[in-house]
């Protein structure tokens, strides 16, 4: 049975697959016809505003809730099937609403979760070090932990047994920037070893930095699922221009640049939005103009934000 997890990871079989997955709570549609696949060695991010169905999708994938219709499999087996139980030792999960038995110490809880997972917690020491949770921290009762420390404890508990499937619900909640970067590095290491990561987040920059693919959910519907590399390549660019004597005249001259949309002035820089396919044409125009400085950035983040702003379906 445990071979199922190994074979799923070695043969390129989707670690997670949902087919027309729907979940209704009474009349409310929490999830509608979700089709997703997560492959080994891949990071898939679930994005969407509050109530989009991200957590419902994760709960259905973990077998915590029954789908109203459709199917979900992890390592090729329904997560609610009896024979899926041994496969759970290969899963690491961090819930969004993280809670622990507050009277217990962090160390004792890690020990308990390690034993319950049935796999040696071989990464515990390394993870504690990377997330900067010291031995003295682990001797404290969890009730004395800050939110960030609890989040780190949850991450170590989810990852200490070297899982093949990592499911994280808003993992950077309450983490400081150093710990966030540590988490990103840790996840990249896991993926390099062949693990599959599925996580939900509201942090767009994090999704763009970390994910191989992003699935955007809204009101229970999957709006889009795309490769981050392709998305970033096709995303508009933000062009920042600076003159020696920045003036309205010079600004208005730039406004006539073909294909460029003037967005405004920002700390002495004139900012334009340019579609990715016309960037060369805009650059040719710019070389004729005497500039003090020029900076071009990807507007992928702003483009991704449009998914949040626009009504469902318009970005399809």
């Amino acid at each position, binding site marked *: 049975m445990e071979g199922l997890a190994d074979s799923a990871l070695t043969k390129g079989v989707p670690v997670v697959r949902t087919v027309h997955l729907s979940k209704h709570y009474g009349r409310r549609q929490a999830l509608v016809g979700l089709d997703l696949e997560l492959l080994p060695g891949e990071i898939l991010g679930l994005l969407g505003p509050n109530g989009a169905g991200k957590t419902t999708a994760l709960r259905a994938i973990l077998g915590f809730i029954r789908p109203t219709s459709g199917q979900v499999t992890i390592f090729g087996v329904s997560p609610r099937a009896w024979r899926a139980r041994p496969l759970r030792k290969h899963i690491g999960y961090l*819930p969004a609403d993280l809670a622990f038995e507050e009277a217990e110490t962090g160390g004792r809880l890690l020990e308990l979760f390690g034993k319950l997972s049935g796999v040696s917690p071989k990464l515990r020491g390394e993870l504690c070090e990377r997330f900067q949770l010291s031995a003295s921290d682990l001797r404290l009762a969890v009730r004395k932990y800050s939110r960030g420390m609890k989040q780190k404890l949850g991450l170590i508990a989810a990852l200490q047994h070297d899982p093949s499937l990592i499911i994280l619900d808003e993992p950077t909640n309450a983490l400081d920037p150093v710990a966030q970067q540590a988490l990103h590095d840790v996840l990249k290491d896991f993926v390099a070893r062949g693990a599959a990561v599925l996580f939900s987040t509201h942090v767009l920059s994090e999704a763009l930095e970390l994910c191989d693919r992003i699935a955007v959910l809204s009101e229970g519907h999957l709006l889009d699922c795309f490769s981050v590399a392709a998305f970033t390549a096709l995303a508009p660019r933000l062009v920042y221009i600076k003159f020696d004597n920045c003036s309205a005249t010079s600004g208005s001259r730039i406004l006539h640049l073909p294909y460029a949309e003037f967005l405004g002035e920002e700390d002495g820089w004139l900012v334009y939005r340019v579609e990715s396919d016309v960037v060369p044409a805009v650059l040719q125009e710019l070389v004729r103009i005497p500039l003090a400085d020029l900076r071009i950035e990807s507007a992928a983040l702003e483009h991704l934000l449009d998914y949040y702003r626009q009504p469902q379906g318009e970005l399809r």
Partner: protein
Amino acid sequence: MTLLRFYLRRTWLIGVFASLALFGFQHLMAFVYRGFISNLEGAPTFLMRVIPKGVQAFLGIDRLPPNSVAGILALAYQHPFVIVIVCALGVSCTVEFLAGQIERLTIAHLLVRPVPRPLMPLYAFVVAATWLAVASASAILGTVTGFARLGYALPPAGQLIQLAFAQFALGCAVTGGSLFFSATTETRADAAGWSVSILLLMYVGNFVAQLWDAAKPWARFSIFNYYTPIEVFVNSTLPPNAWLVFVSVSIAGLVLACAAYAFREFRV
């Protein structure tokens, strides 16, 4: 077993508290008995005159007056204090580990690991049964030490063991019922509310049924109707149907709770 040890460790305080409470209460009963027979000589006869027949039947003092050690023990082991402690022990263990874990969201850590879901209600039951066994043994120890201290002869050991088993069996039946409510609700308030309400209804219903002939047929639906310590001293054991009811309710509650946990949804 890791989880079972964890559960046991988490409940040691309530287990020890309940055991000490029952030990102390039953130990004091020897002093109550001494006061009863030495300072209030006519009390038993007086009580028999003023207490209505129905209440006498409910307490069992019509068959075994309280001016004997067996009589006072029969009363002591069905005293509301004992009933409350036994019920509270069963209800608190099940509510803590089932509905409590759902309410606190800590159950997610168990659900995601290869822990069979039916094991959670089963372990909650085992933990409650363990502490009930300790508490019942403590109660008997309290009785023995109390009466021995004052030099009174005790009923045969077999009857005392039966008494402990009867108390333990009642606790298990309460635990079984509470287990079902804890496994099907999402908050401690709901689980405890349902369990306590049903127990209260059964206790009051059983009391009313003893006083009011029209309600007598309903008495059989109360588990307290089967908990009759007086029978242990009169017939050396509880009636067979009492054991059957206690075992059936315990097993039914446990099986239903395990089934509920195996199939229910967890929004955690």
